[in-house]
């Protein structure tokens, strides 16, 4: 079904998403915004994994398994990240990354 599309297109799409995520993670002041950028990057990695699985090893399960792991890890990352955001907010009344500049909580 997907075999008619060259794999390079899918990878380019993933690359674009990755770069958008990178831009977001680098340029947002808001900590939650940064987290969202990271989410985009993780998603693009997942697209890559699935694409490689589908095009190169469709009978194997390595790509699928690793995607599952990535999703799980991303969920964990978001949970901890947002918890930290809330902790920072509570301590400093701000969630802007450039204002949370002390190590002391």
């Amino acid at each position, binding site marked *: *079904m*997907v*075999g*008619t*599309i*060259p*794999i*390079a297109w*899918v990878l380019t799409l993933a*690359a674009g*998403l990755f*770069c*958008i995520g990178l*831009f*977001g993670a*680098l*340029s*947002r*002041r*808001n900590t*939650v*915004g940064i*987290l969202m*950028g990271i*989410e*985009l990057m993780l*998603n693009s990695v*997942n*697209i890559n994994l*699935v694409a490689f*699985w*589908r*095009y*190169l090893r*469709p*009978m*194997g*399960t390595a790509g*699928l398994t690793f*995607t*599952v*792991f990535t*999703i*799980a*890890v*991303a*969920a*964990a990352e*978001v*949970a*901890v990240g*947002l*918890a*930290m*955001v*809330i902790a920072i*907010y*509570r301590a400093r009344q701000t*969630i*802007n990354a450039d204002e949370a500049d002390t190590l002391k909580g």
Partner: protein
Amino acid sequence: MNYVVLTIFFLLSALTLGSGIMVVTVKNIIHAALWLISTFVGVAALYMLMEAEFLAIVQVLVYAGAVSILVLFAIMLTRQITGTGTRQLHSRWWVAMLTAAALFGGVIVPTVWQQGSSWDKTASDAQAILVQQATEANGGTRPEIIPVAGTEELGAALMGEYLLPFEVVSLLLTAALIGAILIAFEERTRRRRVLTLAEELALRKRGIVEPHDEEGAVVPVDAEQAV
């Protein structure tokens, strides 16, 4: 080349990339989170297109249904700081843009397109092997449907070949859960607690005169000791 599939692919690409751009550029952070959901759904549809249906559903379930809601909740809990009035981007956002653009145009795309043809060849080889196997299994004629690894294989792999990573990931999730709770929750004793009438009376009966904090709220006794 199958134009329907191609059209669907381009539409999904547009949805995913467009929403992604909105996520990083839009001013209102809540809108950014909503655009993020749209991106996730687009990615899920891409998985569906690539016949990873289980992953697509997990993507919707975890990302669109849970992660994005978590993000929205976090935004709402911290909302008065992140109103539309505040500046959302760094003053040097263009550096970030240049970096991302350079990465995209200078590194990834050339690599991908250079390697693309060889990958395509590998891919068509893999497809040919698949078709051949299916034909043999079908007794010489090419079957209507070509098998790829599905949910059952994934489950078997997670329980067999990848058992250790699976357990490690589950451990990681548990640790993250506990960590998140620990970080986000205030200590019980620090919480401001409003006593009910009965509780207040019970305290008074026991001779405990409850101290008041500066806001006039009653602070339980052990809170004082803990601080």
